[in-house]
């Protein structure tokens, strides 16, 4: 039986009560306890800094050349917090409620409420670190709207909020490095968890420069390794983002939850050709002011500016009048796919819709005319003023669009299409963020806990920092309080030796295959299977085919992959081979999970289960659970279920109309 260890008491008092009664480790003992943190994005860097400040001996690892490069840096739009600075009706409860509803009633109430409770403290902490959030002329913090909400609770730093938050956490981390509390291992990849007496006691890591394997002991291991969107090959993730650390933990006994819950982001730059190596997101914040449309006529080949207003179909505003262009991501993505599949797509590929700023530019231009008392000026001049306002708000995003596509989005509407962006699924964790392996924790995107079947915009940054700054410093102590007497286990222990040998054997096996096909070519083929059959729409038949195709691909990979170079040098192809091998196994589990879930909810859309008007049709009677898969052996998993008992929110059909 899965025990989520949710504290008793009312929803609002659980976290306060927990903190009041949790066991503590005294400062002298903290100095003797070592904690390993894998990954240095928002969750990892904030956890490393906070635990270092508390006095634990922290060892942090990242595969990049600096902790500041983790992919949290690419988050654009913002971070939510229920500060209610806008006096527009926000509260902890409303943020909690929006997140549960946005997740299509597949998230755990207690975790989400805690997230909403600590959201305000995150903003305070970041401001104190010097994170340069956008401000109003009065010197106070500015907010904007995001999808799936009707209040303005998103804090931001132009289009680079993730960067500014990560640099804040990174600087806090480097401060602890300077103080000797954190040891940083860059260009290192975790390749297995070391288990002693059923507990996580360390990791085997590979130095990616020398290729050498290293043993590292820790009283606890925290995985902060992000999501697995790159299983689709094309996604908005960084090229190096991978599932390997989480997957190794899974194969050592950590259950993997809701792997099929993946988020397809509606506003990305469309694929331009076979050479495409990654997809670029255009921030959801653009839906604040931009209007999404396609031509009313099928297969309309006219240029966007040649299509008159009355021949444009603003389909989100038409279908969802209450939320309009700000419907949640899953809804917006499916609506775009529906229009393109029906023959209304635009651009040369016809797999795109328009995101149009001309109305916003005109509106802002007129507002400037009023503000500055400019009287009668020409339309061109109004538009110029409006463009300046838009440039201040979204300039870097518009520049990025122009660099990639060669088109000027101030003059012609952007073309956008949905792309894989975030994974709600991940390692199963209890209320304390501990996986099913004692001493092994998962924070941020790599756990499953807070976003249900669909994440709302600007909530990933909130969760990463909540877990790292404000949750783990309390919950890990509750475990470590029992470990004071453990002492440091020498890495000559047989468990370290055996695990290292297994890791070395796998690397040698991979290298010795010496086949004909490149790692990249396998990754592309896996991505195509996943996108076609386990992407925006899934069906029983497609998923069954996908499972077989993935099994075949795995066999082919292990008999015909070619890895150049040697294993004892800097060899990015070898690193990638190990990651793709793990993605192939994960892909199979994702399809199995999607096949098990005979309902549609959030980002998981089974074609067999939809309402007459094409909305997701949940089945609360049979599927109101978190799936938690236990690895048995190759191609075999056991399903455990954590049932979701809603005590406060009453699940209903999600409506944004």
């Amino acid at each position: 039986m899965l025990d989520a260890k949710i504290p008793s008491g009312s929803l609002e008092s659980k976290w306060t009560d927990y903190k009041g009664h949790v066991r503590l480790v005294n400062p002298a003992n903290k100095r003797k306890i070592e904690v390993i943190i894998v990954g240095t994005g928002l969750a990892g860097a904030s956890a490393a800094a906070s635990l270092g400040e508390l006095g634990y001996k922290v060892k942090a690892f990242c595969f990049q050349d600096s902790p500041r490069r983790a992919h949290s840096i690419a988050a654009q739009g913002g971070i939510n917090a229920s500060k209610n600075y806008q006096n527009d009706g926000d509260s902890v409860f409303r943020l909690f409620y929006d997140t549960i509803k946005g997740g299509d009633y597949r998230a755990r109430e207690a975790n989400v409420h805690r997230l909403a409770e600590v959201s305000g403290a995150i903003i305070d902490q970041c401001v104190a670190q010097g994170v340069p959030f956008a401000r109003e002329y009065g010197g106070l913090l500015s907010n904007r709207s995001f999808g799936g909400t009707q209040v303005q609770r998103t804090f931001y730093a132009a289009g680079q909020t993730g960067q500014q938050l990560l640099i804040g956490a990174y600087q806090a981390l480097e401060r602890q490095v300077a103080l000797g509390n954190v040891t940083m291992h860059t260009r290192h990849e975790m390749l297995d968890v070391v288990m002693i007496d059923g507990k996580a006691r360390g990791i085997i890591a590979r130095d990616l420069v020398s290729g050498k394997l290293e043993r590292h002991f820790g009283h606890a291991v925290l995985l902060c390794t992000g999501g697995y969107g790159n299983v689709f090959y094309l996604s908005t993730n960084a090229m190096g983002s991978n599932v390997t650390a989480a997957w190794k933990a899974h194969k050592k006994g950590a259950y993997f939850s809701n792997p099929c819950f993946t988020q397809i982001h509606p506003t990305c730059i469309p694929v331009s050709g076979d050479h495409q190596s990654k997809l670029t997101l255009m921030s959801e914040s653009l839906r604040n002011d931009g209007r999404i449309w396609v031509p009313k006529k099928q297969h309309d080949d006219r240029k966007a500016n040649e299509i008159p207003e009355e021949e444009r179909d603003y389909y989100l505003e038409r279908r969802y009048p209450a939320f309009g262009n700000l419907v949640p991501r899953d809804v917006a993505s499916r609506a775009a796919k529906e229009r393109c599949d029906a023959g209304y797509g635009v651009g040369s590929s016809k797999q795109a819709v328009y995101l149009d700023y001309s109305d916003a530019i005109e509106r802002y231009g007129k507002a400037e005319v009023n503000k500055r008392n400019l009287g009668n000026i020409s339309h061109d001049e109004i538009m110029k003023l409006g463009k300046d306002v838009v440039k201040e708000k979204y300039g870097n995003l518009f520049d990025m669009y122009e660099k990639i596509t060669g088109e000027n989005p101030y003059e012609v509407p952007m073309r956008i299409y949905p792309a894989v962006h975030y994974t709600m699924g991940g390692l199963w964790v209890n209320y304390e963020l501990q996986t099913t392996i004692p001493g092994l924790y998962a924070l941020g995107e790599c756990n499953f806990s807070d976003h249900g079947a669909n994440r709302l915009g600007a909530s990933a940054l909130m969760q990463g920092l909540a877990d790292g700054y404000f949750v783990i410093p309390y919950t890990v102590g509750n475990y470590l309080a029992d470990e004071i007497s453990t002492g440091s286990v020498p890495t000559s222990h047989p468990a370290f030796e055996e695990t290292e040998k297994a890791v070395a054997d796998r690397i040698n096996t991979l290298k010795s295959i010496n086949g004909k096909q490149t790692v990249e070519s396998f990754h592309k083929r896996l991505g195509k299977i996943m996108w076609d059959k386990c992407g925006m729409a899934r069906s029983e038949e497609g998923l069954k085919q996908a499972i077989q195709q993935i099994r075949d691909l795995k066999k082919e990979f292990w008999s015909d992959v070619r890895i150049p170079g040697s294993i004892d040098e800097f060899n990015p192809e070898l690193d990638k081979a190990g990651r793709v091998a793990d993605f192939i196994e994960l892909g199979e589990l994702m399809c199995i999970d999607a096949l098990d879930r005979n309902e549609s909810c959030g980002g998981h859309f089974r074609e067999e289960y939809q309402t007459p008007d094409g909305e997701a049709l949940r089945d609360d009677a049979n599927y109101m659970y978190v799936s938690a898969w236990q690895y048995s052996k190759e191609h075999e998993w056991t399903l455990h279920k954590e049932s979701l008992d809603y005590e406060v929110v009453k699940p209903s059909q999600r409506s944004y109309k």
Partner: protein
Amino acid sequence: MQHYNMNLTLKVWRQKDKNAAGGFETYQVKDISSEMSFLEMFDVLNERLIVEGKEPIAFDHDCREGICGMCSMVIDGRPHGPWEANTTCQLHMRAYKDGDTIVVEPWRANAFPVVKDLVVDRGSFDRIIQAGGFVSVNTGNAVDGNAIPIEKDNADAAFAAAACIGCGACVAACKNSSAMLFVSAKVSHLALLPQGEPERRQRVVNMIAQMDKEGFGSCTNTYSCEAECPKEISVTNIARLNREYLQASLK
């Protein structure tokens, strides 16, 4: 935008490791689409090299959307290539035409030793941040975010400085391999905000000391750093750094 294909000659720096002597190798690439990014062109070349049984070219890259600061190539003598305010990963092949020859090298600076081919070690930047590029505030000590009002102009200027992505193009562009633009961006970001005030003096002194220790060169005001910075960090930050340093030294 008209799309086209092109054939190109690449001269790429190859170096086995930190200690090996390096040199240029020449490669021909065919049918490169103008819609590809510069790194996707390298992907195509590397795939071919692997199939031919040769060693692919090592280069750093990660986000491929111009924000992580990992990519680092000197292209025809210019860090991040010919486009203004741009990173290598965002450079697209429509910048080139059929028949062009392109020379690609790593960042060159003593403080950035080559790891392999086009990959360098920028750990020196992390150590400069460790010397003082932070506000000493432990988790949980913060007052309410709106309890610290900040004049919008200062907040905007701090943001503009904080936009630095730590890629090192400023160092690669400088004939002295100076890191002044990088250091000044961090000093400015924090000096412009009230949160940075208590540690203002020791921060600038310690960061400069670490910069010197790492072996970066001096600034002789050529402004090549600003010209090549993908995030358009202004050299006025260097002026501010000098002022901060002088004030701190006089104290």
